[in-house]
């Protein structure tokens, strides 16, 4: 056993971890899309749900099983994606979260999983729009 040490988390990580924004899951609806990536076995699992109006996301929620960096990144991302278009989602890259939250190199694999979740959300949104058309 080892002492539960305090990792060098950035103030933003600590803030989002202690006070997560937009945690939870939106109820299924015609204007709600969902995406999930990762697994508990891999150490990080992200679920995003979002409500869109016309061409923009108006409400984004997250659920995350993972380290404090994962929780903070997902929490931060929900704010970042509010107002985004499907194209914004398709273009979003993990590096932005890594830079903003000062995520160490060994944790960046988890952010790639978060990026996968965002891409999946963009696909789900586009499929939904196509089906509507």
């Amino acid at each position, binding site marked *: 056993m080892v002492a*539960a*040490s305090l990792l060098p988390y950035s103030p933003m990580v600590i803030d989002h971890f202690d006070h997560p924004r937009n945690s939870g899951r939106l109820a299924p609806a015609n204007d709600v899309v969902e995406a999930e990536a990762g697994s508990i076995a891999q*150490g990080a*699992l992200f679920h995003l749900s979002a409500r869109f109006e016309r061409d923009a996301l108006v409400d984004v929620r997250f659920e995350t*099983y993972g380290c*404090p960096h994962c929780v903070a990144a997902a929490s931060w991302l929900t704010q970042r994606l509010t107002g985004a278009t499907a194209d914004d989602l398709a273009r979003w890259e993990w590096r932005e979260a890594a830079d903003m939250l000062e995520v160490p190199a060994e944790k960046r694999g988890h952010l790639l999983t978060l990026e996968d979740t965002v891409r999946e959300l963009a696909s789900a949104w586009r499929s939904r729009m196509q089906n509507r058309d």
Partner: protein
Amino acid sequence: MTPESQIYLDYAATTPIDPRVAEVMIDCLRVDGAHGNPSSSGHQFGRRARGLVEKARVQVAAAIGAKPQCIVWTSGATESDNLAILGVARFNADRGRHIVSSKIEHKAVVDPLKQLEREGFSVTWLKPDASGAISIEQVRDALRADTQLVSLMHVNNETGVIQDIGAIGKLCRERAVLFHSDAAQSIGKVAVDVESMSVDLLSVTAHKAYGPKGIGALYVRRTPPIGLRPILFGGGQEAGIRSGTLPTHQIVGMGAAFEIAVAEMPADVARLREQRDRLWSGIEKIGGAELNGGEQDRIANLLNVTFHGIEGESLQFALRKLAVSAGSACSSASEEASYVLRALGRSDQLAQSSLRFSLGRFTTESDIDIAIDELQRELPRLRQVARS
């Protein structure tokens, strides 16, 4: 006890020095204290230090039911384990090169045994059952004609599970196999008696029993004598078994700590059991928590708990007000799960989502209240965030 506003619940890692112990140590450290070399019998300074060392030897021996001449001072349990295992195995190598131990031993036992494997010895690593116990049948089945040593710990440092050392010791004696036990976690928590436990070698340390770090002892049975090759060479102190100038103040501290630990054990254990049970009740109320190690046969001050549905690092960080130990060997992305919990059948992920709470002499009721409050606030919050 709340240094830096954290609640210290990591007594199994180490304990603070009891003020009564610190006092006798400080007395030694004064200019007019006991600075003489205990080996310098030609003057009063040396003789005074020797007198204190021998008094402490009696105290430590009494705590484990041993004769004082069987106590060898070391730098701690790690050195005691190394000396016992490497010393016995190498001395007796021509009589057999097989050793029996377990997968839940402390690294201070595991690593010398791995060194012996590199030297051509063969080690049988027994796997405990889900409750953390090694059965006497497992030991019996593992013994071979060339087995020269069995090394099994008394109290597991991660789970607090107590092994039936007496029964295993009896078996070893019947089979004329030497028996070593690491009892680093035992003193003051459970009775230790080298005679009734039939151990030939026993490792103890001061800093788990409110004594100083950097001092320990190895009990070595003297009748019949045990062949032991030293691992340190030099001035020939401790009958040539362990060279090195004796640290009088450390030894005096260990003696006092052991004397207090044994004298106060009944009261300490009763109080700690009550506090531990109250903490466990608080955890159980939250739900999704599972105890590691059997319900029975555990020391009174320790809880090792797996928290389902919460990632290990987030668990530790959310509970950062509590100074506890984690079930992972490292808090980085490359976490290595506790090999002890893995041996009990926990997955890597569950082992990493485990915490060890260990209470001690200075744990207050208020500490337990705060710990329960933290757990009851943070665990549901983390589970809600993770609800996938």
